């Protein structure tokens, strides 16, 4: 039991743990194999108010802090990383609204997002603009009382299933770095908004990653979130609060791998004894569990500091994501090793966990970008 969790958080976590273990875990292999977005899991999470957790109570949410949401992402990812990502993406796509949306905008979208009736997505990345938002080419120009958006976004999680997508587009190319972007919510079905293709991926295979094309999409000014030119700031503040979600997914994946490896080591008999009796196996399990717990504690600490509004939130967000992502990769790799040949085949879940873990080192900023953020904060004396 964690010293920092409230009894209520423990109760909420345990409820989702049970739900994940009994209802989502049996689906995980199938979701991965078929590469289908798990609508049933979305429905399950919606019915049990898991989406609602992080939204403000006045807009149909449960008003819980970032940490509680991360606990849920962790528990679901422990059995199925694709399903854990469903929660992480929903939170990500709502953050621009939460951070910069008007009361009217929140009233319009939050109840549907909190109930799981609506899904959202976050579209910042482009083919030529991954780690560097300065490369963004998508343009939004004034068009009467609204805007016209043209451009292409790539690697957008849930882009093909989202009802609303937060799109970051250049509104003033002359304004210079950090002032040229604005944020718009584009709704599914708006003329000119198309899903161009879905990526074939190594892991999180049930989570659709889409290329989105905006061809003269007319968006009313009411869908613009924040001030014109505020987009970069909104995006960066969003990442401060969303990177812990990726870290939570990574911690969950790592814990899931520890669970499987420990159970397997106790059952698998070689040389007449369970392999758990072998000290070399014990050492691996001990390291895996310790790293996972360290990642978890750093994540929880980061959540509390970000929630408290500390000035170096970016550094904490980057640190927890960096450490948890690397931990997930290392621990799942070791889990495959503990299972030996069985770890490499689809009969056991650890090969899937290892493939899923890799993404946590890549999205919402590669590990290299996290290090850059951390180093910058350190060197600027924050």
């Amino acid at each position, binding site marked *: 039991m964690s010293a920092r969790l409230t009894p209520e958080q423990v109760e909420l976590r345990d409820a989702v743990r049970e739900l994940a273990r009994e209802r989502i875990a049996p689906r995980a292999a199938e979701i991965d194999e078929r590469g289908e977005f798990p609508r049933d899991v979305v429905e399950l999470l919606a019915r*049990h108010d898991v989406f*609602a957790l992080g939204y403000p109570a006045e807009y149909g949410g449960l008003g819980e802090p970032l940490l509680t949401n991360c606990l849920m992402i962790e528990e679901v990812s422990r059995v199925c990383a694709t399903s854990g990502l469903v929660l992480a993406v929903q939170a990500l796509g709502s953050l621009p609204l939460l951070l910069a949306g008007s009361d009217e905008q929140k009233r319009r979208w939050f109840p549907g997002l909190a109930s799981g009736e609506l899904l959202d997505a976050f579209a910042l990345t482009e083919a030529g603009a991954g780690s560097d938002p300065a490369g963004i080419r998508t343009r939004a120009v004034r068009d009467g009382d609204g805007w016209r958006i043209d451009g292409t976004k790539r690697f957008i999680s849930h882009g093909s299933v989202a009802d609303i997508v937060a799109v970051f587009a250049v509104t003033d190319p002359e304004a210079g770095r950090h002032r040229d972007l604005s944020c718009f919510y584009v709704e599914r079905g708006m003329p000119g908004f198309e899903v161009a293709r879905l990526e074939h991926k190594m892991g999180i295979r049930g989570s659709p990653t889409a290329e989105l094309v905006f061809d003269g999409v007319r968006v009313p000014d009411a869908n613009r979130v924040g001030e014109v030119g505020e987009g970069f700031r909104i995006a960066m503040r969003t990442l401060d609060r969303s990177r812990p979600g990726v870290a939570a997914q990574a911690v969950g994946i790592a814990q899931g791998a520890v669970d499987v490896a420990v159970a397997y080591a106790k059952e698998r008999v070689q040389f007449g004894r369970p392999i758990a009796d072998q000290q070399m196996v014990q050492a691996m399990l001990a390291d895996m569990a310790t790293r996972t717990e360290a990642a978890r504690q750093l994540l929880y600490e980061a959540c509390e500091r970000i929630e408290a509004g500390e000035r170096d939130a970016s550094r904490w967000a980057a640190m927890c994501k960096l450490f948890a992502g690397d931990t997930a990769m290392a621990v799942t790799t070791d889990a495959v090793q503990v299972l030996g040949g069985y770890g490499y085949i689809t009969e056991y879940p650890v090969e899937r966990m290892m493939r899923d873990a890799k993404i946590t080192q890549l999205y919402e900023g590669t590990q290299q970008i996290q290090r850059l953020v951390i180093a910058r904060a350190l060197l600027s004396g924050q």
Partner: protein
Amino acid sequence: MRIVVLLKAVPVVGNEKLVDGWRVDRSAGLEANGNDEYVLEAGLKLIEQHGGELVTLTMGPTPALEAIRKALAMGAARAVHVQDPALAGSDALATGRVLAAALSRMEYDLVFVGADTSDGQGGVVGAAIATRLGSPYLSYAARIEPDPSAGTVRVRRISATGYDVIEAPMPALVAGTQLLGEPRYPSLRGIMQARSKQIATWSLADLGIDASSVGSGASLTDVDSATPPPARAGATVVRDAPDVAAERIVEFLAARRLI
């Protein structure tokens, strides 16, 4: 419609901690009895359909609170918890007496109880309570259909040859089975709301029951001894191809004179 669900907190099956050789440690690790969750689910559905209030009634030590809170999170409006140190070790007879006394202080149209408990009171407590209260008793329910306007309840009761449709005026006591349908998981909103729901704690004094008439001292049954059952020798493992495997099964059965 007012429904009271009798909810027992039992040790997790297969995970019981034993003390003094055979007594089960009820100080930790209790969960709601399986059949009780089925009747709770049936009750919640009826409240959704007809309106009203569902209250749980539990007799048990402090760790029973976990099961009670889960029931509140699932949708029960409030809970009554009969708790008294003198109750420890009560037999089925005393349990029936205490729960009947508690129910006589509550208002209800229906009382639901699980057809039996996993920690072994033999499925007799429901019938005993109904008898004490002078209420109709409808047991082994696979379906429960109250008719509030007629003031009656109809139950599909599992019988040795199929099922009986039985009916009685309310208030009545119904013992239900797994066929009532899977219990729901509590929603997170339900869990958060449960924290502000009322759990009333009643002592034996509140119920006007003499402490010496319950508990292990008053139990009319005693355990003489408890031993682990004889261990099985361990399985002979067969991994042959189907033809040979089938042959080996038949030989095995023949050797034991089972065919």
